[in-house]
């Protein structure tokens, strides 16, 4: 059964144009001119139970606008959205009671009061039974190690603790759909690891729907079983994360480092020429005395390279796939033939 359904959803903003001269400013007050900005363009998404959808995109690609439309904060200009059988923009009590929303950079917790007071408020606002409250509190406190900070005022918590507390607060009522907008922003590696681990296990156990909006590829790789890639408001890819990776990764990166000493200019040039002999389309990323980094055909293996590069210098050779982040950057900048 579809828990979340978007059909031909488009959001167009009317943005007031600021005059660049004094005359323009005065005109803007009396007869303002508006520019139409298409933030989300004709998006179709259908999600069933147990899906963790990662929404990827650059700044301004429409990720947050899409999340806001799905949570009912914004009304789509055209198209239809159904979440749990409700039109989100109507913000009915029944709809709001069954969703959880976390914006990584905003906190809904009571700033001056101990954390437990925010949790107790959630219990009453969402009508959570004592049993469910105790059980979910125990579960999230254990996962995020929050027990020791329950009686500490929120203002004294670290950013990581606050984000974890915010997510916990939004899980206490066991929402059927959880929206996480950049939940790992500003977190350290340990906190990110804990968070990803928890989201992954929570989706598995509760078979709910999670919509995760993020810039961090690792978030998506670790937690999501489906990805939507937005660019200029349009859906460029919707599907499996592995397939996205295969599609995006068009080359391998060959890194060579000298073990003895920094390389001289002639040596760098000769090594690069040797690589060119193996793959004439090879492109340099870095050609410095410390590191030679080259993009080569992804079908080549380390064996091919060992066999063909001959020289007297002791080199460390490393062949790796580009990170998804590097591939996405190529895709967004339309470089290296990366397209979907």
């Amino acid at each position, binding site marked *: 059964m579809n828990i979340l359904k978007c059909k031909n959803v488009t959001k167009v903003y009317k943005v007031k144009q600021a005059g660049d001269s004094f005359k323009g400013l005065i005109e803007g007050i009396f007869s303002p001119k508006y520019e139409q900005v298409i933030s989300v363009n004709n998006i179709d998404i259908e999600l069933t139970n147990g899906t963790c959808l990662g929404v990827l995109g650059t700044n301004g690609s429409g990720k947050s606008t899409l999340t806001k439309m799905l949570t009912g*904060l914004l009304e789509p200009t055209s198209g239809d959205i159904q979440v749990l059988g409700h039109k989100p923009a109507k913000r009915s009590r029944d709809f709001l009671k069954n969703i959880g929303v976390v914006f990584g950079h905003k906190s809904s917790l009571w700033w001056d009061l101990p954390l437990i007071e925010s949790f107790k408020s959630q219990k009453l606002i969402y009508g959570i039974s004592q049993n469910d409250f105790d059980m979910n509190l125990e579960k999230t406190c254990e996962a995020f190690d929050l027990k020791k900070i329950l009686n500490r005022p929120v203002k004294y918590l670290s950013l990581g603790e606050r984000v974890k507390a915010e997510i916990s607060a939004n899980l206490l009522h066991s929402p059927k759909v959880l929206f996480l907008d950049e939940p790992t922003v500003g977190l350290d590696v340990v906190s990110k690891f804990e968070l990803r681990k928890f989201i992954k296990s929570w989706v598995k156990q509760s078979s709910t729907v999670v919509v995760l909006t993020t810039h961090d590829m690792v978030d998506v790789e670790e937690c999501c079983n489906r990805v939507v890639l937005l660019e200029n408001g349009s859906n460029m890819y919707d599907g499996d994360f592995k397939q996205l990776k295969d599609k995006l990764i068009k080359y391998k990166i060959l890194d060579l480092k000298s073990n003895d000493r920094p390389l001289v200019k002639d040596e760098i040039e000769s090594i690069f020429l040797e690589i060119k002999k193996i793959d004439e389309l090879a492109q340099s990323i870095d050609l410095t005395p410390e590191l030679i980094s080259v993009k080569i055909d992804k079908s080549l293996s380390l064996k091919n390279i060992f066999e063909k590069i001959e020289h007297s210098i002791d080199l460390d050779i490393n062949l790796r796939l580009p990170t998804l982040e590097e591939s996405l950057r190529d895709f967004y900048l339309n470089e290296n033939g990366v397209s979907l």
Partner: protein
Amino acid sequence: MLSSINLDIAKIYMKNGWRVVLVDRAILFIDIFVATGLTFLMQMMLWKYIYKDSGEVAIQGKTFSDILLYYLYVICLNRFNNGYGIIEDISYTIYSGKIELALVKPFSFKLQKMFDYLGGSLVYLPLALLPLIIDVTMFSNYTVYTGLGLIVGYLVLLVLSQVLCFLLAFIISLITFKSENSGVVLALYSILAAFLGGALLPANYWPESMRLIMEFNPFSYTMGAISEFSLAPSINSFLSCLTGLLIYICIFNLVSNKLWKMLTRDYKGLGG
């Protein structure tokens, strides 16, 4: 509005609002001793000079002790029915985009803020009761019947004036949806409340042409009108004050709901 109130949720918002005010002891001290105590002292010195200089026993029907009691009521009510904090809070919530988090809660934003405000005001309740206690015990020789009427009437008007004050502050704070500067909104409220509420002068001290506005504007029902009732308690002045409060509460409740719907419908939100 009242139909959707869940008392348990109301209680938790009130309790949290109350605790948040108590956390900031410095502001509490400034509010009670400096903003209230010093203001009263200044008014007392000023009016003592005016009465002494004019040689009048009563000005516009008020003796020196009447005017002192009036200012005691008005200054304490000014602190009790103070929308400054709630405007500051709502303006910041809108301006920073945090309103998005409040909008996805299954409990109306207006009610969240109203109970939060009412809870916070409980801290100042002793201050609002102080003039009544002084009035009943030291200033007046009421009959038991009139004294009880004054106490009950004052408490009823106090509760209603809190709701009216919240609605006024709520409506003013919504300007932040359209204004870039929340400081302007705060200044607007402070000026309107001080000027129209009766903290500057009692309504009947204004020129004839302005008296009607000064007496029957909504801000006056949060301070001046209640003070006037307390100075000369009667069933007529109570009913007049009660009617004014109820009419304004109904009007501003409707206005705030309409405005809220209109502004949140047009709300574009902040970027991601």
